[in-house]
């Protein structure tokens, strides 16, 4: 018995998926890549971030200072660069912890179900009932700990939504015949969850990661804006936004630049997340 392989139909959907990403995604990718590079080597570029030049205070953009200077005469561009690492690390930690915890608890709750599912989901419900950002504000102002404490609190309060979403995706997969086939072939439960469920819910994980990153970037910047994030004086986007409001009319870029940096990074990460989600869910939809 032979079967033709030469005339294998390649579905249209599949070919579209393999094509180059659209322009907007390329731009978003380049921006995120630039931010990541700067967050690693930015410290070197930003050697001048804390040098005060009280002779040129709140100057607008010029050849010497591309984004002008702030109230203490520090170079705004250098400070935006220097703030990159802080801006990226917090959201990375929060989104990563969300990724790991939600895949463990979400898949376990969705696949095993029963008492374990109830226990996990009622705990999730409990945390969702508490306003995470407010808890973070209280925790940081009462217990101190600044940026680190904010990351810990936001990490704890960020996971619940992810667990719910991953659990939903896991339940959807659990009902599909391939999981039943694996069960009837005697494949162990842990292996089904790790080797089959996890890859198949991964598009959701990627999308969640992107959303978590963007939201916590904004949340952390918001805390710094309120003076609850990093130590005063450290270059940080949210803090700069707050402090430099005062010189909005003499050097608007001093507060606008970090503001735009926050917006662009959040939007880019979200765009990439959406695109990856579509890209990785598409092959499953391939049917003749």
């Amino acid at each position: 018995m032979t079967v033709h392989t030469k005339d294998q139909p390649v579905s249209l959907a599949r070919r579209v998926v393999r094509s180059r990403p659209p322009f907007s995604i390329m731009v978003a990718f380049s921006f995120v890549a630039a931010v990541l590079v700067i967050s690693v080597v930015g410290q070197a570029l930003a050697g001048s971030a804390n040098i005060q030049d009280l002779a040129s205070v709140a100057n607008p953009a010029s050849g010497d200072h591309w984004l002008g200077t702030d109230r203490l005469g520090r170079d705004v561009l250098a400070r935006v660069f220097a703030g990159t690492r802080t801006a990226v690390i917090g959201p990375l930690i929060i989104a990563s912890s969300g990724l790991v915890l939600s895949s463990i608890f979400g898949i376990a709750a969705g696949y095993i179900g029963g008492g374990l599912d109830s226990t996990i989901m009622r705990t999730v419900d409990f945390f969702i009932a508490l306003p995470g950002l407010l808890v973070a504000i209280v925790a940081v102002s009462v217990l101190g700990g600044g940026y680190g404490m904010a990351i810990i609190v936001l990490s704890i309060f960020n996971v619940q939504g992810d667990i719910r979403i991953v659990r939903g995706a896991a339940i959807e997969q659990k009902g599909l015949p391939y999981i039943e086939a694996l069960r009837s072939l005697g494949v162990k439960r842990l292996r089904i969850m790790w080797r089959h469920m996890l890859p198949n819910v991964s598009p959701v994980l990627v999308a969640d990661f992107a959303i978590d990153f963007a939201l916590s970037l904004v949340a952390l910047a918001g805390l710094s804006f309120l003076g609850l994030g990093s130590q005063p004086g450290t270059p940080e986007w949210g803090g700069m936004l707050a402090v430099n409001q005062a010189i909005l009319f003499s050097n608007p870029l001093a507060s606008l630049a970090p503001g735009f940096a926050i917006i662009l990074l959040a939007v880019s990460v979200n765009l990439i997340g959406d695109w990856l989600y579509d890209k990785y869910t598409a092959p499953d939809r391939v049917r003749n």
Partner: protein
Amino acid sequence: MDHERPTEFEPLLQVRDLSVVYNSRKGAATILSDINLEVGKGETIGIVGESGSGKSILSKAVADLLPPGVVVSGGGIHHDGTSLLDLDRKARAAYRGERITLMYQDPFTMLNPLMRAGTHIVEGLRRSSPTRISKAEGKEEAIRRLAEVGITDKDVVDRYTFELSGGMRQRVALAAALARDPDLLIADEPSTALDVTTQAEILKLLSRAQQARGMSLVLITHDLRVAFSVCDRVYVLYAGSVLEVGKAPMLQAQPRHPYTHGLLLSEPTAKSRQAKLISIEGTVPRPDEVSDQCGFAPRCRWAADACRSERPILAEYEHEHLSRCIRITAIAEEMRTERASALAPAEPRRVPKTNDDIAMVSIVDVHKTFATGKGAAVKALRGVSLEVARGDTVGLVGESGSGKTTLGRCVVGLDTPTQGQILLAPKSGSEVPLKPTDGAARRVVQIVFQDPYSSLDPRQKVGSALMEPIMTLGLSRSDAYDRAEELIDAVGLPREYLKRHPASLSGGERQRIAIARALSLEPDLLVCDEPVSALDVSVQAQILKLFRELRERLNLSLLFITHDLAVVRQVTDTVHILHQGLIVESGEVGKVMDSPTHPYTKRLIASIPG
């Protein structure tokens, strides 16, 4: 197509040299090319094709409902003298619905679940009547319209569509499509998603409505037998072009194209057991792959150089019978002999006898009750007993809701019976019988599911899918790989497929992989739950052949679950008819099908189209 017509033939719909392409960022892909089609007033035509033939896109082009990116690139569509493609968007939208209406395959998604049955019909009435009708008048008219499609229960008007059965929904959909009194109804696989008995009713209803109203009907289907039972003329579509056109009885008696011939033969018959199942190897190509040759040449055993060097035209070979095959006169005789020999009935299979008379599986008085939301319970199985002897193939036939799938799942341990017991024969005779949920039962019984698209992990390569169960037995990676190669050979696929993902395989190939995986643990019993019903006709026959072959070679016992009596006839030795959780008739397959005794079995067999 300007050959002679009977004088009374008056065309209502004319499709001329229609081409449709799909524009993507990668460029244009042809979906349909040079389609010529005519529907007379009061005529019923059938458009028959496998998936990928473009039959649904053709209907959507006529109804101006093409999906985004799919556009008409040439030709014209004329309805009663009006060129539809030249109308502006608004005029076209008014045309569709008023004069051309559509009916789709899936009765479960076609109707709005938030609307009552009557509302679907009244909506149509409002648009076509010049004056607004009152609510009461609308309801009365809706009741009348429902009666026309055989729903005499007046309460149905106020029911939500999700409260109705599939057949009822399809009737409501038909009534809604007819509400605007169209002169052309396009029905896209209207009976495919329904049970056999309901299917026959809907088809009868369609032709009755067509005759009573004198409207034209276009029936789109993958099933030649359905087309023959309803249509006056049939168009056979393949890879985006028409291969053959003819009157239904002529096409059925003497197809003039090897593809139609193959399609007819690969649909197994329910009338007798065929000694040899004939299938068309390979799959439907994309239209662009065969644009400069005969579209069927890559799969045709009669293809000559001339077939591959030029695209043949659709020519008339006898009165009103057109074919795109240039070799038809040369091969007609050969095709006829092949048909005659294929349909010759064969003796029932001789089941290999073994010394031990132990049953592979014995099912004793199994009940299964599912609890539903409001404390109510659904009794899926109400005391079923049957046995599958070693080497035997047992068919389990029933419609949806009969409990056949539930029983299959109980046998492999995916469900547990609420009452009764299922015992499996252990690997070696000395051990005690196994329960389906026992770990050791995995090596005794395995299952092949219906939908090959969802029964394989889309992220797992074929090789890894085959090796995974073998490695649970403690075999090394390289031993498991050797075994995977043997398995893929056994199901007739090339070894390089081990490195592929399921998404790059066709439905038939995926089902072969699913079968190979089920065989990986060397089970003695295979539960096959509708293993061919999601596949194209020509591929169905390939898979049925594979089952026949594997069964002999591996001395497998099969529990074959299906709704399709033709499939049962071809594959099984004994058959059990399941109806509402009870076995109503059992016996040797030939006896049960030739002389059924139970009224339900009789009804089932009477519903087989063709």
